[in-house]
C-alpha cells in the first residue's frame, strides 16, 4: 500500500506552483489562442517535468527522454536552426523587396536588445546579460542559439520569456504605441504602391543576405543561412514540394519537440528563483523598448519627410512575425476603418526578422 503514496511525499510547493504556471500557459494557448503551438507543449511540459521524480527528465545516471531531446536538439542549436528553414520558407519578402527602405524600421526596432543589454549588465555578468537582452529579438530560435553559444546559466527562463512575450505581442504593443503617438498620427494614411519584383531578385536576395551577414557577422551565419535557405527553397520555383514540407511538416515537427523540450528547463528548483522574475521583467522591457525604438524612429523620420509616415509601422519592426504586423494593421483600422497598413506593416515585420538575426550576430561578435 505504501508504494501508492510514497512518491507523494516527494511533492513540494514549488512543484505545485510550476503546475499552476503550466496551467496558465495551457489556458493562454487554448482560450486566448496565444502561440498555441508553443505555449501548449511548454505548459504541458512544465507539469510533466515537475512531478516528483519525473521520469521525463534525467535524475543522476537515469536519463529522461526530455533531457536527451534537450541535448540532441537545443543544446547543440539544431532544433532552432531547423525551425528557421521552415520559417524562411513561410516568409514572403515581396512587400519588403518592393519597398527596401522599410528595412530601416527593422533595424531601429532592435533598440530594445541593446538597451536591455546595458540594463541587464547591472545585475548579471555580460554573457548572461547579452543572452537575456536577446529576448528582445522577439525570435525564439535566435534567443536559443545566442543563449546556448554564450553558455548562459538562464537558458530556461530566457526561452520561456522569449516565447511567452512573442505570444503576448497583441497585449504588450498597443499601449506603448498609443503612449508614443497621437490619434492624428495613428490616422495617417500611407499609400502602398506595389512595385514589381522580379523572380531573379527574389532568388538572389536570400543568397546575397547570407553572404553579407556571413562577411560582417560570421557568428550569425548559421541562423541567417538556414532562414535564407528556407526562403530560397520557396522562391526558386522548382522545389515546391520541399517548400511545402519545410513550411508545414518540418516546422510542425520541430515545433512539437521544441516546445516540450524547452519545458525540460522549467524544473522548479531551476525556475522558481528571483533571477527568473528579473529575467522576465528585463525581457518585457526589451519588448517595450523595441516597440518604442521603431515608433520613435518613424517619428524622427517624419520631421524630415514631406509625405508623413504612420509612426505605428515602426512597431512592426520587432521580429515577432506575423503578430506585430497584424497588431499595427488592427490598430490603424481601429483609428480609421479605411486605413489599411497591412502591407507596409508586413514589410517592416519581415525586415525585423532579418534585423533581429543580425542583432543576434552582433551580440555574438561582441561576446563570443
Amino acid at each position, binding site marked *: 500500500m505504501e508504494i501508492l503514496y510514497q512518491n507523494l511525499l516527494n511533492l513540494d510547493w514549488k512543484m505545485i506552483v510550476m503546475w499552476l504556471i503550466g496551467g496558465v500557459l495551457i489556458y493562454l494557448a487554448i482560450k486566448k489562442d496565444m502561440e498555441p503551438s508553443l505555449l501548449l507543449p511548454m505548459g504541458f511540459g512544465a507539469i510533466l517535468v515537475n512531478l516528483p521524480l519525473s521520469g521525463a527528465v534525467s535524475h543522476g545516471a537515469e536519463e529522461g527522454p526530455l533531457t536527451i531531446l534537450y541535448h540532441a536538439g537545443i543544446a547543440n542549436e539544431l532544433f532552432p536552426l531547423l525551425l528557421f528553414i521552415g520559417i524562411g520558407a513561410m516568409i514572403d519578402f515581396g512587400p519588403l523587396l*518592393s519597398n527596401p527602405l522599410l528595412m530601416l524600421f527593422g533595424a531601429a526596432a532592435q533598440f530594445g536588445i541593446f538597451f536591455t543589454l546595458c540594463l541587464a549588465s547591472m545585475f548579471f555578468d555580460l554573457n548572461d546579460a547579452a543572452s537575456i537582452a536577446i529576448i528582445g529579438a522577439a525570435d525564439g530560435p535566435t534567443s536559443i542559439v545566442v543563449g546556448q553559444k554564450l553558455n548562459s546559466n538562464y537558458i530556461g527562463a530566457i526561452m520561456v520569456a522569449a516565447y511567452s512575450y512573442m505570444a503576448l505581442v497583441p497585449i504588450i504593443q498597443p499601449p506603448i504605441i498609443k503612449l508614443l503617438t497621437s490619434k492624428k498620427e495613428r490616422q495617417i494614411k500611407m499609400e502602398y504602391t506595389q512595385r*514589381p519584383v*522580379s523572380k531573379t531578385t*527574389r532568388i538572389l536576395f536570400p543568397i546575397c543576405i547570407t553572404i553579407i551577414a556571413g562577411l560582417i*557577422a560570421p557568428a550569425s551565419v548559421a541562423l541567417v543561412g538556414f532562414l535564407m535557405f528556407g526562403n530560397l527553397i520557396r522562391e526558386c520555383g522548382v522545389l515546391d514540394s520541399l517548400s511545402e514540407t519545410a513550411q508545414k511538416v518540418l516546422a510542425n515537427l520541430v515545433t512539437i519537440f521544441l516546445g516540450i523540450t524547452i519545458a525540460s528547463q522549467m524544473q522548479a528548483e531551476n525556475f522558481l528563483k*528571483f533571477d527568473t522574475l528579473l529575467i522576465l521583467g528585463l525581457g518585457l522591457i526589451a519588448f517595450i523598448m523595441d516597440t518604442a525604438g521603431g515608433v520613435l524612429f518613424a517619428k524622427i523620420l517624419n520631421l524630415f519627410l514631406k509625405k508623413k509616415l504612420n509612426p505605428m509601422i515602426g512597431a512592426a519592426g520587432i521580429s515577432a512575425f506575423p503578430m506585430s504586423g497584424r497588431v499595427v494593421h488592427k490598430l490603424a483600422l481601429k483609428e480609421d476603418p479605411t486605413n489599411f497598413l497591412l502591407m507596409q506593416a508586413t514589410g517592416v515585420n519581415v525586415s525585423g526578422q532579418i534585423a533581429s538575426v*543580425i542583432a543576434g550576430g552582433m551580440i555574438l561578435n561582441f561576446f563570443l
Partner: protein
Amino acid sequence: MLIPMDFQPIHFVENLRYMGIGMLGVFIVIGVIAGLTILLNSITKDKNDDERA
C-alpha cells in the same frame, strides 16, 4: 536575500558603447542590404521575368 546577484549600476554606463556600436552595426548591415535590394530591383526590372510580386 532578495537580490542574489551584485547590483552594479555603473555597468549600465560602461556598456552603453555596446548599444552604440550594436545599433550602428545593425543599421549599417541593413543599409547595405537595402541598397543591394534597390540595386537588384533596378538591374533586373527590365528583364522578362514571368513571376512578379
